């Protein structure tokens, strides 16, 4: 996210990188035929994506996972939760901006309330008092906002280092990064270090899950691809936010195709 050492240059570099990446994403999404149904992921660059996936997975197995296991061994569960909470709390500017952009005033109010409460009584976000008071945690990013605005996701893209994405969410990620409040007076090395702690701590919370997925999936690549598609769809739809109230809206026909076995599949395809 941040590359060079001196501050003005790093800002310029960040803007340049953002633009370059955004343009690449737009070109990619224009080049790929957009034909995705609810249950089939649009993945025209599967060859490239699989290569990137292999690269990321190797990086994880050799570096991130061992480090995360060490972290998990050393840092007690409360400590890991505290780190997780601090990072979640620091996402406030991104959440708040996007809740407003999607016109979710209630969500924005909840985020604001949580941020004030957790930053003060929660000592900089270490403790999540908001959750115990019924202000439930929810995150909104620019990828979700673009989706709400009606922008399609485009082809599935496995980004090196960052993992599963697509042009819409990838560009969204760049906006997220810009919407974050970077303390300009802090050295780059320190910010990198803090970001690394966040990543390691996040990975430490998924040790068992990823191990299970690797061992039990028939095809780990498509397991992750489907997981990403479903997670994003749920985040965009925001069912998890109001599930307590009960979501009575009928599922769309697209989503329901999953639960219908068509006896005439063969005739359809020929």
């Amino acid at each position, binding site marked *: 996210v941040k590359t060079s050492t001196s501050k003005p240059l790093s800002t310029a570099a960040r803007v340049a990188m953002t633009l370059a990446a955004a343009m690449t994403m737009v070109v990619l999404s224009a080049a790929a035929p957009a034909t995705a149904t609810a249950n089939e992921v649009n993945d025209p660059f599967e060859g490239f994506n699989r290569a990137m996936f292999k690269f990321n997975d190797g990086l994880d197995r050799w570096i991130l996972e061992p480090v995360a296991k060490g972290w998990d061994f050393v840092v007690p569960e409360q400590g890991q939760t505290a780190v997780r909470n601090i990072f979640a709390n620091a996402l406030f500017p991104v959440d708040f901006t996007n809740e407003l952009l999607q016109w979710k005033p209630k969500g924005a109010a909840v985020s604001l309330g949580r941020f004030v409460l957790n930053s003060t009584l929660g000592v900089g976000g270490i403790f999540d008092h908001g959750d115990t008071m019924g202000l439930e945690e929810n995150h909104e990013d620019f990828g979700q906002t673009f989706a709400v605005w009606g922008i399609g996701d485009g082809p599935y893209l496995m980004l090196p280092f960052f993992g599963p994405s697509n042009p819409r969410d990838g560009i969204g990620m760049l906006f997220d990064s810009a919407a974050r409040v970077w303390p300009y007076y802090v050295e780059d090395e320190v910010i990198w270090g803090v970001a690394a702690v966040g990543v390691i701590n996040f990975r430490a919370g998924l040790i068992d899950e990823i*191990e*299970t997925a690797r061992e*039990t999936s*028939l*095809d780990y690549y498509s*397991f992750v691809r*489907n997981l990403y598609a479903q997670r994003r769809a749920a985040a965009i739809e925001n069912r998890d936010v109001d599930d307590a109230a*009960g979501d009575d809206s*009928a599922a769309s026909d697209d989503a329901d195709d999953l*639960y219908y076995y068509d006896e005439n599949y063969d005739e359809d395809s020929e």
Partner: protein
Amino acid sequence: MMKTQSNRVATLALFGALTLFAPLLAPFSAQANDEAIAMVRQTSDSVLLILRDEATDSATKKERLEALLTEHADFPTISKLVMARNWKLLSAEEQTEFSLLFRKYLTATYGRNVDSYSDETVKITGSRDEARGDVTVQSKVMRSGDDILVDYRLRQFDGKWRIIDVVAERISMVSNLRSQFQEVVSQGGTKKLIALLREKSETGGDDVLGTAATK
């Protein structure tokens, strides 16, 4: 004058019709959901009972879970949904073999962590009517960390509600498996799929017990 009167008649007629039909319609759907909820509650209670039992070894626990799964999940339907258009690529014998292996695979996958039960409880949070008369029962697995949302999609077969999908944290198992199976079939055919299922249902489960025990 005439107009208001005919309006009143129409309102009365409508009201009458509603009161006549309401008892026929409303309890039907409410009762259906109650039955579905009761079924999920009963099943999750049975699962918790198996997991809490410290006197039983993990192999027996897994057998019991598989029996429970066989009783409450509709494997013929799940097999078809997961395979979708690939189902017809299998011969009758292969379909039988697939269903058997698939059940074993699911038990191996979901039975991996039979020994890591701590203090989880299950709370039913609601239900939702779905297309084709299906019902989704929503539940929450309460534990020390973040709660896990688990939805069960149920369909009625001969008056009995059976599970046709499990949606954990908004991730549908049927959707995920369908996507993987489709990929395997398109790359290596149905033979590859059956071979992989056999491999994963045999080694996958055992290997995992090893890693679970050392943790």
